[in-house]
Structures are given as structure tokens and as C-alpha cells.
């Protein structure tokens, strides 16, 4: 830890702690789950970056969405995202959450994930290599440093837009709004 880091820690401890303690909950919607175990185990060891997998959304602040998002799993993704505590960051892993990917014409998948929940960063590729998660985490650090990883703030401010899109995709939602609308 150099002197620059220490001044940063003293100036904004919350931001620095958020950076170096990203507890990830990953949502294996279809493909992509096979890329996660090498990252968290001995091959690429994400723990040295402070990234560890946790079991429940309450303990997590990094949400990794791997692979295509079907309409059914979108429901679970939204509920998981709303249960996470702020600050929370979302990374879309693979090309399908970005723009539908090879499931563009599918009747059962959604095309743009960031219409339904705010996404802070994307990892393009089908599939990306496992190291890409580590690269994404370092990019996320830069974004957090510049206060640009503010997806959760956007979600709070534009909640009506997101809720409307969610209702368009899923029909009537059975859970109450997270933030007061109107």
C-alpha cells in the first residue's frame, strides 16, 4: 500500500472499502456458470481482489449475470437485485444480456438487460474467458473511484421507467414497488 492509497483511505473509507470488498452473488441463468468456478478457485483466485462468492443477496454487493436472461429468470433477477443492499453493482457477463446475442429472435428471452435493471459494466463475448471477470473487476474499481458506478442511484431516480419496463416484460408484478412511485 503506497502513500497515495493511505490518503485515499483516510479521505473516503466507505468508497475504498466498497472497492476492495466486492462480495459477488452470481446468477447462472443458462450458460456461463462454468466460467465462474475457475475464477473463484485456485486457477485465477479472485479472492486476492477481495471478490468472494456469497450465498444470499443480503450479503452481496456485486451481481454477476452470466449468459442469456429468459423471461422467467428475469423475475428472479429483479427480486434478487432489489434485496441487495446499497451500494450494489451489476456486471453483465457474455453477449446475451447486452443485446440478446444468438437468442435475438427467441420468444422467451429478453434482449437488453439494462432496460430492466441498471448495469454498471459489460463483458462482451460468447463466452468470455474467465480472466475477463478479473479485468471487469479492475475496471469497476476505476468506475467506483470516479463515482461512475452509480447504477443503484439511477435505479432509485428512474424507478418508474424500470418498473414500467419490468411490467411490460413480466405482466403484473406480485411484489410492491421498492421505492415510492408518484
Amino acid at each position, binding site marked *: 500500500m503506497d502513500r497515495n492509497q493511505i490518503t485515499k483511505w483516510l479521505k473516503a*473509507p*466507505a468508497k*475504498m*472499502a*466498497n472497492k*476492495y*470488498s466486492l*462480495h459477488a452473488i452470481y446468477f447462472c441463468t443458462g450458460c456461463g456458470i462454468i466460467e465462474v468456478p475457475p475464477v473463484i*478457485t*485456485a486457477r485465477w*483466485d479472485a*479472492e*486476492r481482489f*477481495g471478490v*468472494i462468492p*456469497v*450465498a*444470499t443477496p*443480503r*450479503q452481496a*454487493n456485486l451481481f454477476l449475470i452470466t449468459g442469456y436472461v429468459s423471461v422467467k429468470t428475469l423475475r428472479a433477477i429483479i427480486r434478487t437485485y432489489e434485496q*441487495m*443492499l*446499497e*451500494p450494489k453493482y451489476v456486471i453483465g457477463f457474455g453477449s446475451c444480456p447486452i443485446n440478446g446475442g444468438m437468442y435475438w429472435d427467441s420468444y422467451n428471452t429478453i434482449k437488453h438487460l439494462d432496460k430492466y435493471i441498471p448495469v454498471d459494466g459489460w463483458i462482451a463475448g460468447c463466452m468470455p474467458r474467465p480472466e475477463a471477470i478479473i479485468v471487469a473487476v479492475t475496471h469497476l474499481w476505476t468506475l467506483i473511484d470516479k463515482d461512475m458506478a452509480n447504477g443503484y442511484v439511477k435505479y432509485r431516480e428512474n424507478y418508474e421507467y424500470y418498473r414500467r419496463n419490468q411490467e411490460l416484460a413480466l405482466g403484473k408484478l406480485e411484489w410492491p414497488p421498492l421505492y415510492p412511485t408518484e
Partner: protein
Amino acid sequence: MESMVAKITQIILSPVLALIVGVFFLGLARKIMARIHWRYGPPLIQPVIDMIKLFYQKGVSHGRIFDLGIILSLAGSIVVVLFLPFGRIAPLSNSGGLLVILYMMLLAPLGMALSGGQGANPNISIGISRKLILSLGYEAPLLLILLAVMTHYKTISIVEVVSAQQSTSWSIISFPLFLSGLSYFLILPAILGIRPFDVSSAPQEISSGPMAEYGGKYLALATIEHAFVLFISIALFVNLFLGGAANPFIFFVKMLVVFVLGLCVNAVFPRFRIEQAIKYLWKWPTLLAFVSLIIIMAIRS
């Protein structure tokens, strides 16, 4: 007057020291586990970073008992720390004894059970029932072990047990008591809740059980609680069987040795099912502790 001031300083100092040692052990555990898995591992201060983050987050509460239960378990742990001698630092150990420690050690799982019960998550209920069954499993041998120690040294005071060991020899290398010591080492992973006895907080089966609804400050408090439990169960072992220590540093080194041995067990073993855990706990450790107690009684009479 001066002894009063010294006592108050010790009462404040002892939980702080216990917290520092416990959190250091948490960090060390992650690093050593990583090295055993051939990984580089997180920095040693990773638990501190996590806790800073968690204290800045706004947690979700599930009612008043949810808040108070975790404070109850934390308070129970801090009180036990006051009764345990840490080297020469032993603020309340003259007034208490092994029986008080035995009672107060139950407060930690009970407080967590109260707190988690408010969470209304099915995973929490499963985790709590497993945790209480597990504590039923290790309390029986623990009671036998403490009875054996108390009968052998004819005292319930932990300070006298330590001074008796320092004048003769450690009880882990004296004849009937080494069986008890072995038995304590066998149930140590169950008290700590690490593998192969991490049934109650199994993340892959029941989403970390009682911790499932903890986030933010609650998770930070639960981590601190875990650090205290780590300190208590290892310090009890060092005091009863490794002869305590004349100063805190030697005591800390002894604790470190015991902890690293426990971690090696943790790193290589898979998880028991709950009924396998009970079967194991009530078989070998209980048998060893019982045999040791009977031999001591026979020698005494």
C-alpha cells in the same frame, strides 16, 4: 484505589485484545486456507476491509428481536472473555469460574437463534435447528471435560487451574487429562462451526443458514461475534490444557499453534451431515472424556 483503576483498565482492555486477536485469526484463516488450496489469498486485513464496508451499509431489519438477539449473543461472548485469563490479563477470573463460563457460552448460539427466528426465512430455521442440535452434541463432551479438569485440580477457578499447571506440568502431557485434552481438540471444530462441522452455516446447502438475512451492520456484528467465539474456545483450550501463559504474547503464540492445527483439519475435510456429526460427537470425544473422568475419580478415591 489503584487496584480499582487497574481492574477497570483490564476490563476495557481484555475484550479489545480479544477482538483484535479474533479478527486477526479470521484474516489468517482466509490466507492459510488459500495457501493450502494453492492460491495467493486475500490480504491479511481483508476482514477489516469487509467490516468497514458493512458498517457503512444500511442493513435491513426484521423487527426488534432481530436487532436485540445479535446484541445479546455479542454481550454473552464479551462477558465470557472477561472471565477468561489472557496471559496475566484476567479481570473477572477470581469471581467466576468454569461453571460460569459454561453457562455463558450458551448465550451466543441462543442469541443468534432468537435473532434469526425473527427473519422468517426457511433457511434460517433449518440453520438454527442444526446449530442448536450441534451445540447439544458438543455440550455433553465439553461438560465431561470440564468436570474432569475440575475434579483433577479440585477447584472451579480457572486461574488456579492455570497456576497449578505452571507449578507442575501442562495437563495435555499429564496422564489421565491428556484424554480430555484430545477430546477437547476433537470437538473444537464443532464449537468453532468450521468444517467438518459447518452444518449450520453451510452456504451451498442452506444459503449460510442463520446468516441468510444478515447484511450491512448485522453481518458485521455477526462477524465480530464469530471472532469472539474463535478467541473464547481456543483460549479456553490453552488455559485448561496448555498451561496458560505468564504474558499475553506467549499466550497468543500458543493460541496460534492450536488455531493453525484446527485450520488444517478445516481445509481438507468435507462437511458432515447433522446426524453424522451428532453420532461422531457423542461417540469418540464423549467416550474419551468419560474414560478420563472415570480414571481421575478412581485415582482420587
